[in-house]
């Protein structure tokens, strides 16, 4: 026998294409509690069964593509790896905070991507390219752990009050995590240039170690630690 339970959703709705302003819409969904439903599964069911106009992004449905970050009962997270069983029966869902809303749960991530691009998130190595791989010791490779796993979902950066205030000037935790990923990569020889690029009152130093980023990261990464490392490295340069 399937054990049926009811879930109550309150979901942020906005479509510039119709004449309504922003509102919260309620949906009730019945589900079998033995089904191990994730929040994304519930949203898909709302879209399929109750309301095809509800818009949200999704792709891999396993927490690696970073499409379905949203604000779930006040906290940013990925819908696809948030089990319904971890949530109360009443679930409020809003788009990621601090960014313009395109429609419903879809936000405009342009400034987030711009801040990522700003840190030159690619390896710079001006030495002649060897015939085979560049060597890297397992210890040096280990320094990349905690950085390269970032999925660019935006949960951290849009949870950061410093980013809300200065989205155009403060790089934000996701971008800075990648800045540090290349600073600590033994194969990269542009460390000085990278640090100098970030040396102004805003890019890095607007981080006030509030640590919302660490709190919400669905991959359990620690951008604050990376930001502190950038600050420390900056102290070493004249």
């Amino acid at each position, binding site marked *: 026998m399937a054990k049926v339970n009811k879930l109550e959703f309150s979901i942020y709705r906005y*479509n*510039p*294409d*119709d004449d309504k302003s922003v509102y919260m819409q309620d949906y009730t969904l019945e589900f079998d509690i*033995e089904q*191990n439903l994730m929040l994304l599964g519930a949203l898909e069911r709302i*879209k*399929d*069964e109750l309301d*095809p*106009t509800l*818009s*949200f*992004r*999704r*792709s*891999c*449905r*396993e*927490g*690696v*593509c*970073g*499409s379905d970050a949203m604000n779930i009962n006040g906290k940013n997270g990925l819908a696809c*790896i948030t*089990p319904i069983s971890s949530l109360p029966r009443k679930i409020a869902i809003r788009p990621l905070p601090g960014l313009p809303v*395109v*429609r*419903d749960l*879809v936000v405009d*991530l342009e400034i987030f*991507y711009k801040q990522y*691009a700003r840190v*030159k*998130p*690619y*390896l710079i*190595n001006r030495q002649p*390219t*060897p*015939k*085979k*791989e*560049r*060597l*890297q*010791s*397992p210890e*040096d*490779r280990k320094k*990349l752990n905690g950085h*390269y*796993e970032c*999925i*660019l979902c935006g949960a951290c950066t849009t949870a950061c009050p410093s980013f809300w205030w200065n989205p155009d000037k403060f790089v934000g935790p996701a971008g800075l995590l990648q800045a540090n990923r*290349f600073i600590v*990569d033994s*194969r*990269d020889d542009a460390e000085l240039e990278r640090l100098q690029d970030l040396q102004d009152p805003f890019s890095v130093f607007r981080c006030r170690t509030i640590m919302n980023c660490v709190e919400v990261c669905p991959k359990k990464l620690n951008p604050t630690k990376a930001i502190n490392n950038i600050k420390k490295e900056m102290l070493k340069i004249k």
Partner: protein
Amino acid sequence: MNIANDSFDVVIIGAGGAGMRTALQLSQSGQNIALISKVFPTRSHTVSAQGGITAALGNIDSDDWRWHMYDTVKGSDYLGDQDAIEYMCKNGPEVVYELEHMGLPFSRNDDGTIYQRPFGGQSKNYGKEQATRTCAAADRTGHALLHTLYQQILRAGTKVFSEWYAIDLVSSIDKDSISGVVLLSIETGELLFAKARAIVLATGGAGNIYQSTTNALINTGDGLGMALRANCVLQDMEMWQFHPTGIAGAGMLVTEGCRGEGGYLLNKDGVRFMEHYAPSVKDLASRDVVSRAIAIEIREGRGFELNGVQYVDLKIDHLGEETIKKRLPGIRELSIQFAHVDPVEKAIPVVPTCHYSMGGIPTNFHGQVIKTDRNNKDKIVNGLYAVGECACVSVHGANRLGGNSLLDLVVFGRATGMHLEKKSEYTTPDLADVDKILDFYHKLESNKTGENYVDIRHSMQKTMQDHFGVFRTQESMQEGLVSLGELRDRLEHVVLKDTSKIFNTNRITILELRNLMVAACATAYSAIERKESRGAHSREDYPDRDDNNWLKHTIYHLDDLISYRNVNMSPKSIDTFIPKERVY
């Protein structure tokens, strides 16, 4: 024609590993490129690839690209084209080194070289001892690869149309070439006719034709549908890989790397059953072999069952917590999230799950799309290329080896880019094609009553799962085909309930379903015709491979007709690998 238009030298559709590698190759050529992607590039499904990219670097053990080639030909059950396999294996090491130079964070050996792990179907000396050939970034190789390529695209300043959807191709006025494509901005609803000297389809897989798949929700065979509707053909669509280890009930992939690192499968009696099916390599046999073995164990009552889901166990806890955390951290995360099992302590419940399409749009190894004329002769389609999972070049034949997919993306992405470095001429587009596409598009908006897309999608997926799965018979497939025919008719009358222009995912879902239906029908018609068992296509009514009659590619045409095409048996620098019995 009443929409905006623009022209480019090359339009690449899809920004996964294949599309981005193609774009990157072209970034230095000074050409005007548009990289179109229905999702932001790093959301593409390459991100989910786990175990690695196979190339004969020989970092751990002696190796040779010819051994890799032998394994790939044998793995393909001899249906792979040997000229293309030769090209891929020979270029493998170079493209992997290139990725490393771009910054891909490969795991490392103590001497600082790229870490490699053993994968299924790999051997040294043409079928002797197990080889160690798959280069890995822990168990997140696809993620590392996709992000590295996107970073390079950023660096190169490539023009990306993020969250744009390609609806259909536009032919030239003489119908001999492809001249452009009609695009839709998901965010604004704007339509654009993009004229191009060349179009590259890099749209990935179509695993969502099945109920249970490791594929992302975006893998809907868009390139397959577009190519077929532009009067091209699809090749070997009966060949679908069922990955042996998808998480039971959820479908998420559990990398073959688990078995490469020393994990193994157990049935409910605690028996390591692969010893019976593949005595010499056991759990590291080819994927088709392992998937069939699991299916037989379950069918004969030796599987586990929980809440109606049947499965076998994948045991890796004996590898130790340290190895699991270092080599398989992503698997541990997925297993805890979706199977509620920490593999450090307990086995992971797994079941064969639809994973990869070996078939696709036939191409040569420059990525040029090929169709067959009335006399079954190959003909290059001017202005159209295909690369990656949507293409069938064919390096995977009837069964792909683990780690060869990422390799396929970068080798042939690069090759396609190199071939496009020489500019071709614009051809004159047939604007009637554009009007036809717009008519279809507006008709979809005006259907007020009719069929519900959700019912059609679910029924299609169930039909494919029930009738075109690991084991197939004529009778069951015929039944499945009848249902598919009805569903395809119903799809003609589908209703679009949301007609908003802004980020309308309802519209995209329906456009995607149209492409999924093409992939499903192509699979069904091709599978019914192939009356033998080869690789992933396993027929209970024709259990043996039949090289006399069936060592040939299946070609599916727009009108559901099937024809055939020769397998290339002529590598350039090495003797042909002659088909022999395939044992592991």
